[in-house]
């Protein structure tokens, strides 16, 4: 047995030539033969013959090799298996044929095949992992859990022992560890004597930084620091772009090793997904911030009118929390969204017509203005509370209606009153006058027909009766004139007041040609008014002046205009006591005895009424014996600055 004669020489020649490894063990598990290929694959010693196999290859103990060989011998049936040999650091496919004399073992190196197979499996796993990860990112889970998932995937797929996720801090341009896996304490940041150049490099170049052995790296001094804590290789992949960096995903390994391009691409794919989700989250966050910051309510719904976004203000309308509303149909919150509800109709209109729609809505005692803007996936509704505006509007409308009604009512009353006044004054002018005519006429008849039977006193009494009747007739005329002013329609026309005053002055002189009264009229007095009525103003005021200057030694009447635009009629006549000035413009108010100065007591009341009806004002100034001045304003009077 010791000389290897177990096999015939010709057979041994054959076995030496085959490319499979081959060895034979005797019944005591000692090597009886080993061909050249086996010796090469197993790095066998020269003096292997007769050595107990597990003494020659101790690493096989307890592994599949030992278990399968024993099973073959026990059952006396061939076995076949594939196992990784730690002796040879190769994968072997093994076939063992037992016989009562021992075991013949054929094996061949299938490392390349197995590794290819493993690579296929790993690729499949990575792809599946990427798909799962992408799905998680899309499903809208939290960014935190997404980051954790990504890091665990990198650890598992790359078989790395430390994973870090760096976050780019925008304003300062620095970065910090957001999350780390695998460190017992601290992080690479704490260890770095240079500020993580490898991470910065990856971020700034926008491409992965890979080092298969940090000890021979000259590109980044930070790597030397890593070596001190037992990290010998690393993969550092940027998240985001050079223009818009978000951070970096870093995997460290304690041994020097070449990281495959496939692995790097895997990490890049994860980083890409992370970047997209971070951007989406950021843009959502900004959008949400904007939408929450506006004080009006906002809700977005999908095409089935389910809530996809709602701000706090909107949710408060329904006393809901925004989160609880997401995903639920609007119809759940209000009847308005039942199929025939007003809101439902408008939302449909916006969606189907693809145009903005605005409508108003009465909702639990509030008025809301709803603006709908359709977009590709649904409708955004922007809701403003216009309750205040609406109630103001309604109040104004109600007020206006009430006002119109009251004006109409008053107008009617006024028209009625005017009619009554008209028929009253008609009656007055006819019926009060008739008895006066009789009084006057028959007094006259008495004087004429019964002259000889009356003495002087009798005739005097009859004259008094006639005078009284005359005077009452004048009063009636004046009263009628006053009521006519109140009802007259005023059509404003430019008037030459100087000419009107001159006209009145002429009438006065014609009436009493024997009197010598100086009358000064300022030229160029102009105003707007109804010519007949304004004529009456001057006739009354100048008539008064004419009358009350009867006892003045040098009667003077002045008509003019103050710089303020006020017109005036002044005289140097009897004047009046200012204490009674408030009585001047009342009807039937007289400040002088009837036998001293004649008059109806209606004139100034008529003047005041005419001035007021023109929108002007009138006042008087005077003192007993010092004359009187009447000031009045009219529209269109020129003022001097």
């Amino acid at each position, binding site marked *: 047995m010791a000389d290897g004669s177990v096999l015939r020489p010709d057979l041994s020649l054959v076995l030496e030539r085959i490319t499979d490894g081959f060895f034979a063990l005797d019944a005591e598990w000692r090597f009886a033969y080993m061909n050249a290929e086996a010796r090469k694959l197993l790095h066998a010693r020269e003096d292997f013959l007769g050595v107990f196999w597990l003494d020659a290859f101790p690493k096989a103990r307890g592994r599949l090799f030992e278990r399968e060989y024993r099973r073959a011998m026990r059952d006396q049936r061939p076995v076949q298996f594939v196992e990784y040999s730690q002796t040879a650091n190769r994968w072997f496919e093994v076939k063992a044929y037992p016989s009562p004399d021992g075991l013949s073992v054929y094996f061949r190196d299938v490392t390349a095949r197995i590794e290819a197979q493993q690579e296929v499996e790993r690729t499949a796993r990575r792809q599946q992992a990427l798909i799962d990860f992408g799905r998680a990112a899309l499903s809208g889970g939290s960014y935190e859990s997404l980051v954790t998932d990504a890091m665990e995937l990198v650890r598992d797929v790359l078989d790395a022992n430390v994973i870090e996720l760096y976050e780019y801090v925008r304003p300062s341009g620095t970065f910090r560890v957001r999350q780390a896996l695998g460190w017992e304490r601290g992080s690479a940041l704490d260890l770095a004597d240079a500020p993580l150049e490898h991470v910065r490099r990856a971020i700034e170049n926008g491409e992965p930084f890979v080092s298969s052995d940090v000890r021979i790296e000259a590109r980044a001094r930070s790597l030397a620091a890593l070596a001190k804590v037992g990290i010998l290789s690393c993969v550092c992949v940027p998240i985001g772009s050079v223009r818009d960096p978000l951070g970096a995903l870093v995997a460290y390994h304690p041994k020097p090793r070449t990281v495959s391009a496939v692995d790097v691409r895997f990490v890049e794919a994860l980083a890409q997904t992370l970047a997209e989700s971070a951007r989406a989250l950021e843009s959502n966050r900004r959008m949400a911030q904007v939408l929450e910051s506006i004080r009006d309510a906002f809700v977005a719904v999908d095409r089935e009118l389910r809530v996809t976004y709602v701000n706090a203000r909107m949710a408060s309308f329904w006393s809901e929390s925004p989160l609880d509303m997401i995903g639920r149909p609007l119809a759940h919150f209000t009847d308005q969204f039942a199929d025939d509800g007003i809101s439902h109709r408008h939302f449909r209109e916006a969606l189907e017509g693809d145009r903005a729609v605005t409508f108003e809505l009465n909702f639990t005692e509030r008025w809301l203005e709803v603006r709908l803007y359709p977009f590709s996936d649904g409708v955004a509704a922007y809701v403003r509370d216009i309750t205040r505006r609406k109630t103001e509007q309604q109040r104004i409308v109600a007020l206006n209606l009430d006002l119109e009604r009251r004006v109409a009512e008053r107008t009617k009353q006024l028209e009625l009153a005017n009619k009554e006044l008209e028929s009253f*004054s*008609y009656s007055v*002018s*006819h019926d009060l*006058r*008739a*008895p*006066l*005519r*009789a009084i*006057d*006429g*028959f007094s*006259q*008849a008495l004087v004429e027909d019964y002259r000889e039977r009356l003495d002087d006193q009798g005739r005097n009494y009859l004259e008094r009766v*006639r005078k009284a*009747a*005359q005077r009452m*007739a004048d009063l009636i*005329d004046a009263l*009628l004139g006053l009521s*006519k002013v109140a009802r007259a329609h005023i059509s404003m026309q430019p008037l030459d007041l100087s000419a009107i005053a001159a006209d009145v002055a002429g009438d006065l002189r014609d009436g009493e040609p024997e009197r010598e009264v100086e009358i000064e009229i300022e030229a160029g007095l102009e105003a707007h008014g109804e010519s007949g009525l304004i004529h009456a103003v001057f006739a009354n005021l100048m008539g008064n002046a004419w009358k009350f200057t009867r006892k003045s030694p040098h009667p003077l009447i002045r008509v003019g205009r103050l710089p303020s635009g006020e017109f005036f009629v002044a005289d140097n006549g009897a004047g009046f006591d200012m204490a009674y000035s408030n009585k001047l413009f009342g009807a039937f108010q007289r400040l002088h005895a009837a036998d001293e100065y004649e008059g109806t007591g209606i004139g100034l009341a008529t003047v005041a009424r005419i001035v007021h009806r023109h929108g002007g004002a009138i006042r008087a100034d005077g003192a007993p014996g010092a004359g009187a001045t009447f000031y009045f304003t009219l529209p269109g009077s020129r003022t001097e600055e």
Partner: protein
Amino acid sequence: MSTKPYILLVEDNPDDVELTRRAFAKNHIANEVMVLNDGAQAVEFLSGAVREGRALPQVILLDLKLPKVSGLEVLEHIRADRATCLIPTVILTSSKQDEDLLAGYRLGVNSYVRKPVDFNEFVEAVRQVGLYWLVLNEAPPAAGTGGVMS
């Protein structure tokens, strides 16, 4: 039936009737004066006169404010009938206010007299009216009455 020219005075106030008569007398207007007290009577009288061929007045003095049918309505009636439309008709008014109203009827009325409170003025007004319509003015050819006059 009298064929002597007469004056028709339509006036409801007996005082005014008396004063008018006196004014005529003072102006030596001796024509017979027929007095009717309201507008309805006046319309009836004139229609009857035309229908029955009685003599029509030479001048009609018409108070404006009359019971039942107003002076203006009587005037309208007078002007509407071919037989009476040419009779000189003088409106007597009490008030200045009626002047505006009368402006619209100027064409239909031959003259109007405001009855002043001062009797002397009234006498003067009546004198002028009488002078013009009864003395200076020839009565119009008796258009509607010609047949019956003879």
